[in-house]
């Protein structure tokens, strides 16, 4: 018997609730993220999708008003008991607006590997920079000006630089938080291309306001509304025959 490649859960979320200043932002969420898939999360504002994403690498921990219940497992390890810095090394995050650090392109990419003690030799750093930029399909555009400031790049290039910066620390999961909300259509297309390329090696969770983007890149899509998961399923099925009326209404643009 031929064994079909088994679908392994990379992330399992059990009964996760999030609160901001005592107000419920996400209610009793149960969901899983399969290894090497792109799970897209759609939903209107205040649906809890960004709260969820920021919980996955515990970026919410810095907010004093934030509280949570439940558990999230990364490879069967509860992330809330992990060292948050180790977690963030394994679960990278791309923000809505590109945030290059005020240093050169080269420095931006080796910054985290250096701080985390992953590299120390110059030749290793050169390799990491090249590899990460190639993977983020930016190498050809910037290989001649690695030492120029990252602040001088275009928005789309900056966003791909941020992707490269995450790739340089070899994460397992990458979280995208509306990564193209500040970009023009061409740059968006490039970011989407690299996402599809990236899922071969990484597991991706994408939060987006753009329903079409979800239909273009998502393997599975989840629809959040007012802090609740309404439904989740194969992207094709969700878009063609949603089980819930609310999902259909949102996708066809009747609200949100």
């Amino acid at each position, binding site marked *: 018997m031929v064994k079909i490649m088994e679908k392994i859960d990379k992330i399992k979320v059990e009964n996760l609730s999030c609160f901001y200043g005592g107000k419920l932002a996400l209610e009793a969420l149960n969901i899983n993220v399969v290894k090497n898939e792109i799970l897209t999360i759609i939903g209107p504002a205040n649906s809890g999708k960004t709260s969820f994403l920021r919980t996955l690498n515990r970026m919410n921990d810095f907010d004093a008003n934030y509280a949570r219940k439940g558990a999230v497992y990364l490879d069967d390890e509860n992330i809330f008991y992990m060292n948050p810095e180790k977690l963030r*090394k394994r679960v990278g995050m791309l923000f809505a607006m590109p945030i290059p650090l005020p240093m050169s392109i080269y420095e931006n990419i080796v910054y985290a590997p250096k701080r985390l003690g992953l590299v120390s030799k110059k030749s290793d750093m050169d390799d990491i920079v090249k590899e990460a930029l190639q993977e983020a399909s930016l190498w050809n555009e910037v290989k001649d000006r690695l030492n120029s400031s990252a602040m001088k790049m275009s928005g789309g290039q900056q966003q791909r630089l941020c992707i490269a910066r995450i790739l340089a620390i070899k994460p397992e999961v990458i979280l995208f938080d509306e990564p193209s909300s500040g970009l023009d259509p061409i740059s968006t297309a490039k970011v989407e291309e690299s996402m599809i390329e990236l899922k071969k090696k990484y597991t991706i969770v994408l939060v987006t306001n753009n329903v079409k983007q979800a239909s273009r890149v998502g393997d599975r899509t989840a629809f959040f509304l007012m802090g609740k998961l309404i439904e989740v399923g194969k992207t094709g099925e969700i878009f063609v025959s949603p089980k819930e009326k609310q999902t259909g209404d949102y996708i066809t643009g009747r609200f949100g």
Partner: protein
Amino acid sequence: MFKLSPKLSQKIFYALLFMATLLVITPAAIIIYIIIKNGASAITWEFLTSMPKDGMRGGGIFPAIVGTLCIVLCAISLTLPIGVCAAIYLNEYAKDNLLTRIIKLAIVNLAGVPSVVYGLFGLGIFVMFMNFGVSIIAGALTLSIMELPVIITTARGALSGVPHSFREASMSLGVSRWQTIRHIVLPNALPGILTGAILSIARISGETAPILFTAAAFYVPHMPTSIYDQVMALPYHLYIISTQIPNMPKNIIFGTALVLLMMVLSMSLIAIVARIYFRKTRKW
């Protein structure tokens, strides 16, 4: 009653406000002018580099300049690291709780304590209780506590000027909070912290009351050899020669005032210009 049209009354009040501004600024210009006019003739290389003679009525002010530099450099090297660390704590670590509020209140009140009260405190604790005697170190410690709130406030301003998103980006890559501060926040806040430090150096160079009983001596015939020595200090020297010594030649007093003023103003000017420059060339 006669009522002015809004247009006209606007003109009149603008003119009044402009005159008030002039009244605020011009006395400073007049003071600087008077000092330069009367003091410039005293400034010679000899005046700057020789000892006082004839009971201060002749010679130079070299030991006073050296003394002030010693006290000020000592003070800033004590207060800058502590102040910057305190600013880092308040800006990067402190939660919004009672302790933080008390710290902030303490800083506000440290800033308001009169300089002569710092002098009393320094006399009581450093000169007598810790037995440093009247010395560079006692004066420097006194000045450093006095300047601490100013350093903390300017350093906090510089730190909070670094966009929050930089910290998020760095920490989202698994970099620890301190590493983020050390490698992202501090380098970008450095220009602001340094200009603040220069302004502080300028300010404490001119302070007299805190060193009155803690560091300054009327006359010391030799250069300081250790931090436990008494020294002459420029502002104190100016006070002495302008009030305590009869028949003091006018141009020496004005010359001393000019040296002190130029020291303070040039440092402040450098800091202000540097700040404008950094603001314009900032990368974000």
